[in-house]
């Protein structure tokens, strides 16, 4: 009995210290999962793929950790007929041929330029910086006050890039910036 209590106390203590320390990794994992799950709620135009079974390509810029998380998530998984490829983008590397471009917080400064360069391209730009929607991002991941990861959506940006976002996704968004008429 004493041993059980002691063990339980030890586990609780360990878990508490792990949460406090691994705040960032958990947030990264959630964000990576979200990015992956977005694939199911966004329709790309047919021109975005070379073939019916051409894979999704997710480009990750400025967050090695998230790229790793994504690689773990998509391993052995597919969305519909398509497999999912994770592409780590280096600085200066052109962000072309991507279906999703995740711009990590360190690269926020380049976001506006990237978004402009991708204007009209069937690429879903996902960011994680407050106010990123103004910089041309389509979906911006935010951490709500309760610590949960939420997101906000700019429909005008999606429309510019020929993407259609599921209403179910919109229903979960913290805020939605409306698109054009």
């Amino acid at each position, binding site marked *: 009995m004493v041993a059980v209590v002691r063990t339980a106390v030890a586990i609780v203590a360990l878990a508490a210290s792990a949460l406090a320390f691994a705040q960032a990794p958990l947030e990264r994992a*959630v964000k990576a999962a*979200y990015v992956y*799950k977005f694939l*199911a*709620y966004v329709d790309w135009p047919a021109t975005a793929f070379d073939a019916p079974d051409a894979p999704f390509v997710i480009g990750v810029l400025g967050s090695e950790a998230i790229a790793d998380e994504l690689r773990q998530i998509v391993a052995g998984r597919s*969305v519909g007929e398509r497999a999912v490829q994770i592409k780590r983008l280096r600085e200066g590397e052109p962000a072309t041929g991507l279906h999703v471009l995740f711009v990590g917080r360190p690269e926020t400064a380049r976001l506006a330029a990237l978004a402009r360069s991708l204007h009209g391209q069937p690429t879903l730009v996902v960011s994680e910086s407050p106010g990123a929607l103004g910089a041309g991002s389509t979906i911006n991941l935010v951490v709500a006050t309760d610590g*949960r*990861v*939420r*997101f906000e959506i700019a429909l005008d940006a999606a429309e510019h890039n020929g993407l259609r976002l*599921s209403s*179910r*996704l919109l*229903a*979960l968004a913290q805020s939605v910036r409306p698109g054009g008429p």
Partner: protein
Amino acid sequence: MLRTVRSIRDKVMYVVLATTFVALVVAAVALVVYETVTYRDATIADLTTQADLIAITSAPALSFNDPAAASENLSMLRVRPGVLAASVYGRGGELFAIYRKPDARAEVPERPEADGARVAGDRIVVQQPIVERGERVGTVYIVAQYELMRRLGNYLVILGAVLVLSLGVAFIVSALMQATVTAPILEVTDVAERVIDQRDFSLRVKRSSDDEVGTLVDAFNAMLAEVGRRADEIEASNRSLQTEMVERRSAEDALRAADRRKDEFLATLAHELRNPLAPLRNGLALLKLASERPDLARDARDMMERQLDQMVRLVDDLLDVSRIATGKLALRRARIDLKDVIAAAVETARPFIAARSHRLEIALPDGPLPLEADATRLAQVFANLLNNAARYTEPGGRITIDAQVEGREVVVRVVDTGIGIDPAMLDRVFELFAQADQSLERPTAGLGVGLTLARALVALHGGAVVARSEGSGKGSEFVVRLPLAARPIATVPESQRQPSGLRSAGHRVLVVDDNRDFASSLAMLLSELGNEVRVANDGAQGLDEAKAFVPQVAFLDIGMPKLNGYRLAEMMRAESALAHTHLVALTGWGQEKDRRAAQDAGFDRHLVKPVKLEQILDILETLPTREGSSAGPRPDAGASSS
């Protein structure tokens, strides 16, 4: 009505109501069973669908870890009052979102249980996985009210209400519609009862429908008609049987009475016939002894003559009565004066009246009293009445006979001062063998034939005779009424009647009769009287004879072989040469119809056998003397035989 006639009407009603009731109950049971089976399935399917919807809408919320969105989705179950609680669990089984119906005391488990549906008491639980892209991302769990019992209760209430309502409507509809079925039947029943009550078979049921009841009505009416007809027939035959029975009984009574009278008559007859025999025998004995006493012999002879006369008269009267009864008495009517008749009657009766020491008074009118009558018979009538008066009056009495004309009748009254007639006997005195005094001590008994004969003879003359009396001991009065002849008496000179022997001679006479003895005897007689006579023994021979001989008068028998008398007469009449031949029928049949038949056949006269010679002589006398015809050419006499 429904109470008084507790039969078809009620039965129809019961059938309708029972049928409705059974149908409704069967329908209700089927409905409840169906409901029981389907409600569970339907509820499970419904909740499963609901759970699936929740699963689909909650999948993104689970994916993006948004319990608020999931709760919002769950809260849509508000619109389903049956849902008490619902929850969504995450991938690892952790409670993600929860919904509770306000005020409902239902809980969801901390962690998901087995997938699928299950019923526990009044709760039903459905748990469905939440699958996103083939991947289970969570679980949805719904607890709902399982309302089968309540629903069944509601159903039963509704069905009960429907049952009551249906029975009510069925009752009303049946009551309205059954009139078309039961009314004709009730009408038949009604008429049947009236027929039984009133015995009136003329009643009929009005046919008001074309179905089996209509056929029944027709058959019933036909049966009534048949029964009525038979009842009438039986009644009619009963009536005729009764009439027949009454007639038969009266005939039987009459026969019995006639039989009794016949017995009485035979006794009286034997007695009356025997009466004169004793005096006759005494007379004979006297005659034997009286050879030397001529006065005694004369007295005896006179007495015997009187007795014999009485006997002869009795037998004659009997024969006459018999002839009248059998219709064989024929009157020889002639134009006569009643005064002569009365004179003759008085002459006949006078000896007996004198013997009884009566005084006779005769009062007759001055003028003649012409009658178309048989003088002999009428004389017989009045002689009988006078004899009767003399007999039933004590010696030394008074007898009156007078005659008066009253209108077209002559009334003759014979009045005596005798023993009289009891009023009860007044009519019966005319009956055959009726006796005023049945006692053995009666002084002078007649046979009771005289009055009967008198009445019958008067009746034959178209007259009537009645008896009157003030009573016993006060005398009697017999009144005879006879019709007067229309024309005055033809005064026939006596000289013309007397030489009959001459006038009946010199005629050509044909006699046709299959009775050879009668024919030849008549022929001999007529020949003796100086006539030329031919005889034939059958009709055919008679016709030949008649054609050849052309007789002035022909006596023809009616019943003959080969050709009867009627036919013979017709055929003779057809011959022009025989048109004026006087044809006389000789027959045993004297009825009126026989006379008519003879007349129709062309006969001039009709004589009933046995024929008296006088009748034949009369005919020959009345024939016109046809000297001219006898002088003319005559057929060859040699061709005929005599």
